[in-house]
């Protein structure tokens, strides 16, 4: 199968080594723990394993069969066929980290282009080669801020409207640092993030907001950024890349670090991973970035080429003095996003963002007309919005499922104060007819 040796070759190799049997290669392993019998099912052929996996796959009912109004951090978008055609090339997928630049220019140039696209999308100067996902990229922004102030400022303030899973991951990463205090500003989950300045003081290292926020709302953070900077702290925006096709950039608002989840850029939902974290910043902070960076240079004949650069910051050189242990990036996912953004280009990115905006607003208008349902739309929103429902969201979603819909996210699951609140996402793949049908199903579900 995947081991090509014939018996004759095996024998010749053993004799070159100077041992008689394969077992003789393992005498350093304690005898009583050597060659355990593994209680695993017997191996299958390719044909059989595919059948088995098809069984599992078809046991799911997914956003592929159902009309998906579920978002909350992962979004169903259309992925052009050319994306998969390119990223499934073995030259990309079966290479590793470009340690040897002479034979890795493909990966290196693609990452360099990724860095450029992310910097331009977010309105920043530089981007790194990617992180595991949006949440770990957010945590790395916290690590950057901590080290930027050499541990002298220890307070990190999070907007109440950040994805709760991101908050959890940031806590897992940052709670190990001496004295770091991670606080969620505001008292009300829907509090306007413009209120955060009350919490900012001269011990604050970083203020973090989300854009669009977890509830889909869009705010102009320009004034907040100013207030953060007046206190000497750094300002991070967690941004949705689809929205940035249309909306004012965090860079233009004064962000120091922009991070986010790159999954909407051509990456399948795939039950939550692999996804893509991006991190962009200003030139002044480039040396504080954790993770890989690709830079342009020339070879010894003057030809343009690309290399991993600023590697002396990384764990394999600095060891316990490194600010992060990250060693890989999310290579193939960064390539996916690069191909997606190249294909959509200037007009496609805007168009998709606009379609999401239009359809979400139509959906909000239609749902808002159903008796008993109220859309919380005091603030502008992008492609996701909160609906206060007349009844339990889980109950509604159960009925929606029977009607062929994946309903919105039940906010009561992450905050008991938000019981009966549904977070509805609408992207370009949803048609007007589907939105109308969804509203009908929602109305029926509420009466059941």
């Amino acid at each position: 199968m995947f081991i090509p040796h014939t018996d004759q070759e095996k024998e010749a190799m053993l004799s070159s080594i100077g041992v008689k049997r394969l077992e003789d290669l393992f005498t350093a392993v304690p005898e009583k723990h050597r060659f355990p019998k593994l209680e695993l099912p017997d191996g299958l052929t390719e044909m059989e394993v595919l059948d088995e996996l098809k069984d599992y796959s078809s046991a799911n009912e997914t956003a592929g069969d159902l009309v998906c109004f579920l978002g909350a951090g992962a979004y169903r978008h259309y992925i052009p066929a050319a994306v998969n055609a390119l990223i499934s090339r073995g030259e990309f997928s079966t290479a590793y980290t470009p340690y040897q630049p002479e034979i890795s220019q493909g990966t290196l140039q693609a990452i360099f282009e990724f860095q450029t696209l992310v910097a331009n999308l977010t309105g920043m100067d530089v981007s790194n080669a990617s992180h595991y996902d949006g949440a770990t990229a957010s945590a790395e922004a916290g690590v950057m801020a901590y080290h930027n102030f050499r541990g002298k400022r220890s307070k990190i303030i999070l907007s109440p409207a950040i994805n709760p899973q991101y908050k959890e991951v940031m806590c897992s990463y940052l709670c190990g640092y001496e004295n770091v205090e991670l606080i969620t500003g505001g008292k009300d989950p829907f509090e306007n993030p413009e209120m955060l300045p009350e919490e900012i003081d001269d011990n604050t290292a970083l203020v973090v907001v989300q854009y669009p926020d977890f509830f889909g709302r869009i705010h102009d953070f320009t004034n907040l950024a100013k207030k953060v900077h007046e206190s000497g702290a750094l300002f991070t925006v967690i941004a949705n890349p689809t929205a940035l096709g249309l909306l004012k950039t965090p860079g233009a608002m004064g962000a120091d670090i922009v991070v986010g989840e790159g999954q909407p850029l051509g990456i399948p939902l795939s039950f939550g991973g692999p996804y893509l974290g991006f991190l962009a910043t200003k030139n002044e902070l480039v040396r504080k970035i954790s993770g890989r960076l690709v830079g342009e240079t020339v070879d010894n004949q003057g030809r343009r080429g690309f290399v991993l650069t600023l590697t002396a910051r990384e764990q394999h050189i600095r060891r316990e003095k490194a600010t992060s242990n990250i060693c890989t990036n999310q290579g193939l996912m960064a390539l996916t996003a690069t191909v997606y953004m190249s294909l959509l280009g200037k007009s496609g990115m805007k168009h998709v963002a606009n379609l999401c905006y239009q359809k979400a607003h139509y959906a909000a208008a239609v749902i808002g007309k159903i008796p008993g349902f109220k859309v919380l739309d005091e603030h502008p929103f992008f492609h996701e919005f909160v609906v206060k429902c007349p009844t339990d969201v889980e109950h509604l979603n159960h009925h929606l499922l029977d009607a062929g819909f994946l309903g919105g996210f039940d906010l009561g699951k992450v905050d008991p104060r938000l019981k009966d609140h549904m977070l509805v996402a609408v992207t370009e793949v949803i048609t007007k007819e589907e939105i109308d049908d969804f509203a009908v199903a929602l109305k029926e579900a509420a009466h059941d």
Partner: protein
Amino acid sequence: MNTPQGLKYASTDEWLKVEGNIATLGVTDYAQDQLSDIVFFEVTVEVGDEIKKGTIVATIESVKAAADVALPASGKVIEVNEALANSPELINSDPFGGAWMLKVELTDPSEVESLMDAAAYASYCETRGH
């Protein structure tokens, strides 16, 4: 390898030039040679900071390595070579001149006595080879 007379040397490859109770800090020719092409230099303390002996006061990065610079005697920072951050290659080309890093007012000038002189440091480098 250059090891100027009249300076004091630490086993971690820093040099101190002591004039009265003022000391100037840098790293040695041996250190820059081990690091090879230096591309980044940053002082991690500020003028006015009171620094204990052995504290890290600067960071050097080359293409393939990174090194911390420690202050081998306690003192108060009185001047930082701000220009060095913009031309870190000076650490390679002029480690004992243009690449001075900072000046301190020594808290206890007797601490310097335990450091090596040029001859002792040169033979110490010999034993480590290349």
